């Protein structure tokens, strides 16, 4: 948070409507994302009650567990969900691209990747736990489950893992994605309610943000977006319907009544999800999105191609893997934030506010200036930028252009409402700059001291070389009979 995003909230209060905090879309939105609206049984960690799922607004499938405490029914549900999710994964790989890899080998990258969208962070957590509770299951022996169940578990675990990766678009929570682009006039706690958040961003005709959000807080009108259900619905509708189903001995009509009751709880959220997708899709895509999606496709290709040889993800990461992962996440976070700022002047404004960047109009320009103090002359154009920003940078600080990060320079002096910048890179190879690369008088420019990927390269031992202080080389996690037998009650 910063004064900038706080101000956006105040403006939202004043306008009675959400205000943008981004001018471009910073997330990839697939042509046909798989939208999942999961519900779980209250009081349980990951006892599924239902999932509404589908890759098009008009074609949802509703899977339910009529008696959520029944183990067989849970696994039957997991098997149906598995078929649905795995089918989506297999049909969203796109064309295979061949890229030059290391040592002249060919590296493959799928042209597309599956994208999963859930309503909120609770939905992500639920998928993670569902993945954990299914990935170690055995398809043989006394506790055999459908072959698709452990496969689903591994994929869900993988998706949840990618969600932790800053800038990844493989598994998204609608509330998070929306909040990345809009600020509302309510607190972030209330923003966690998808219906209220959408009420501020896109209020129905005749309503403003606050009144739409107020309606959205009524669980009768807008059932919670899951995975937790409305307690009143549980007590007054769901519990009697489950009891009736139990009494009927699994009668089809009782099941249908139960299904219809659950449907009333997920359908509003389902519609909200697709409206949210539409709103996000309508924003112009940021330049960095395609690049980050490429990383996502790389990760997907790798996981998909090695799926057959690998074991299910361990219960806990061994130390070196955990350290490497943390490092990777930090690096990704930094790169992601930097990219967003380069892509979006409204995000860059944060840096200008803190004085790490500055923007203004070029008032003086010497595009062909040479630095002749060394043995050979070097091209070092000078720019003076008039700015009202509170620049907090020392002379000598390296900076780069926000519009074209390859254009590099360093600060020579600051003062008198302006900054003098010496350009040092991204000018071409000759002693005259390439046409159009040096800004001219009257141009609006923005320079920042933050560069992408300032983090060093990870240096961690290979897994075989894990030091004994960290337990020595980890064994592969091989699921045991106990894993397969684990209760899921």
């Amino acid at each position, binding site marked *: 948070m910063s004064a900038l995003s706080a101000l956006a909230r105040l403006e939202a209060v004043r306008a009675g409507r959400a205000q943008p905090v981004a001018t471009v879309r910073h997330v990839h939105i697939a042509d046909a994302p798989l939208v999942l609206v999961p519900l779980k049984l209250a009081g349980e*960690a990951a006892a599924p009650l239902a999932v509404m799922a589908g890759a098009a607004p008009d074609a949802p499938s509703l899977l339910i567990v009529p008696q959520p405490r029944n183990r067989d029914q849970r696994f039957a549900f997991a098997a149906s969900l598995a078929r649905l999710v795995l089918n989506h994964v297999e049909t969203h790989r796109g064309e295979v691209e061949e890229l030059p890899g290391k040592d002249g080998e060919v590296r493959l990258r799928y042209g597309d990747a599956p994208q999963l969208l859930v309503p909120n962070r609770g939905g992500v957590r639920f998928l993670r736990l569902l993945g954990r509770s299914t990935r170690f299951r055995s398809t043989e022996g006394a506790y055999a489950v459908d072959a698709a169940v452990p496969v689903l578990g591994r994929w869900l675990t993988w998706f949840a893992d990618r969600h932790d990766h800053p800038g990844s678009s493989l598994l998204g929570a609608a509330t998070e994605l929306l909040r990345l682009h809009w600020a509302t006039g309510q607190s972030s706690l209330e923003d966690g309610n998808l219906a209220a958040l959408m009420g501020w961003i896109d209020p129905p005709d005749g309503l403003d943000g606050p009144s739409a959000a107020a309606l959205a807080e009524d669980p009768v009108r807008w059932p919670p977006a899951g995975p937790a259900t409305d307690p009143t619905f549980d007590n007054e509708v769901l519990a009697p319907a489950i009891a009736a189903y139990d009494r009927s001995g699994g009668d089809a009509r009782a099941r249908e009544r139960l299904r219809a009751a659950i449907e009333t709880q997920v359908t509003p959220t389902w519609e909200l999800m697709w409206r949210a997708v539409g709103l996000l899709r309508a924003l112009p895509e940021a330049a960095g999105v395609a690049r980050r999606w490429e990383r996502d496709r790389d990760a997907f290709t790798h996981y998909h191609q090695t799926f057959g040889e690998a074991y299910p993800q361990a219960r806990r990461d061994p130390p070196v893997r955990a350290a490497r992962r943390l490092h990777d996440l930090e690096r990704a976070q930094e790169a992601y934030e930097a990219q967003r700022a380069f892509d979006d002047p409204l995000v860059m404004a944060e840096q200008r506010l803190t004085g790490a960047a500055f923007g203004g109009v070029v008032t003086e320009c010497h595009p062909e200036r040479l630095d002749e103090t060394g043995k050979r002359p070097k091209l070092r154009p000078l720019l003076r930028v008039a700015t009202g920003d509170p620049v907090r940078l020392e002379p000598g600080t390296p900076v780069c252009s926000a519009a074209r990060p390859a254009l590099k320079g360093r600060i020579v002096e600051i003062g008198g409402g302006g900054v003098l910048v010496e350009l040092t890179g991204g000018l071409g190879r000759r002693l005259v700059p390439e046409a159009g690369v040096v800004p001219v008088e009257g141009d609006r420019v923005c320079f920042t001291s933050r560069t992408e990927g300032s983090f060093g390269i990870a240096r961690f031992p290979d897994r075989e070389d894990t030091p004994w202080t960290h337990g020595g080389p980890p064994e592969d996690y091989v699921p045991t009979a106990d894993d397969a037998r684990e209760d899921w009650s």
Partner: protein
Amino acid sequence: MTETAPDLDRLRGGAAPRNHDARTIAALTANPGCARRGVMDAAGVDKDAVARALGFPAPFGQSQFAITRGNVFEQQVKADGCAELLTLLREGLGLDVPEVAYDDLETVAGNEGRELRHIRTRRLLARALETGEGTLFDHPLLRLDIGGRPAYLEPDVIAFQFAGRFHVIEIKSFAVVDGQAEPEQVAAAARQSAVYVLALRDLVAELGHDPERVSHEVFLVCPENFSNRPAATPVDVRPQLAVLRRQLARLTRIDDILAELPADLTFAPGERLAEAVRTVEARYAPECMAGCEMAFFCRDEARACGATGALGRSVRDDLGGLDTIGTALALADGDLDPAADLAETAAQLRLASLLRAEALENAEARRAAEAPPAPAAAPAAAIPESRAS
């Protein structure tokens, strides 16, 4: 303390006082600056009823599935004289627990009076401290000083005596999966346990013993992974204890607040209830939603007067502590000359406002330039094309 006691009865409008539990106390410390809550809690006012009467019922309904699950798990752990619990302590944590006695302090010969129950708790714990007699004390009734007044606590916990020390055991039905649980739930449980540790320590000290005989290590008993099998996790609540102590000390002195209030103030139901509630100053923050029954009422009030706090504490901090949205916006717009102590905040807001406007205008201009011509403009755009062909 006795001086204001009648006032407190009047505040409740004659209704019986409600007991505190650790949740309410932990929540109290989450918002120590709130006089409204302090007064209502000190008087044992039924805030839930007040909120309902005001038309802002608290959304704290619980699903029967969750209640059943919690009860079943607790009963299971406590069945047969806490057989499962003891196995856990002995085998799971490797404690060498000898002979076991289990005392349930919930009822005293059919009479559940708080004083009687508290006396019984004191007596049994005193004996335990002297002689080491007794192992598991279920449902002790404790007392804690809140804002200068004693509050009774009815914890649903077990005080476990082992090797001369007491440990708090709390049974919770949220799952611990691969050694991890939902952080908010663990944090809430740790905060509550800290309240019990503090209350137990007070009692032990009152009985003339070293308060450190109550351990800062509590045991959380939760279902493991996706099963009903309990697992015990030791949790060090020293950080929570430190926060709690600090907050309780800071808690606005209730008696001082009461002295400022009109003598005939009462929270009894009636036409003037809302007015009465408003008389006592609140300090709403979104965190109230998780812990205070008055939250919807206070939020409405905070929003109506344009309080920045309703948007979240961090927003208020980012605005340099400005309390009202109107002032912050006026400073951002440059429509208000800031007082000297606000100059820095005002400059930040003004700049933020200009930067936002600049970025949004440029984006708008870019979008207009890139957008396909709108239908009305289409004929104009078509002319040069037709000429070219």
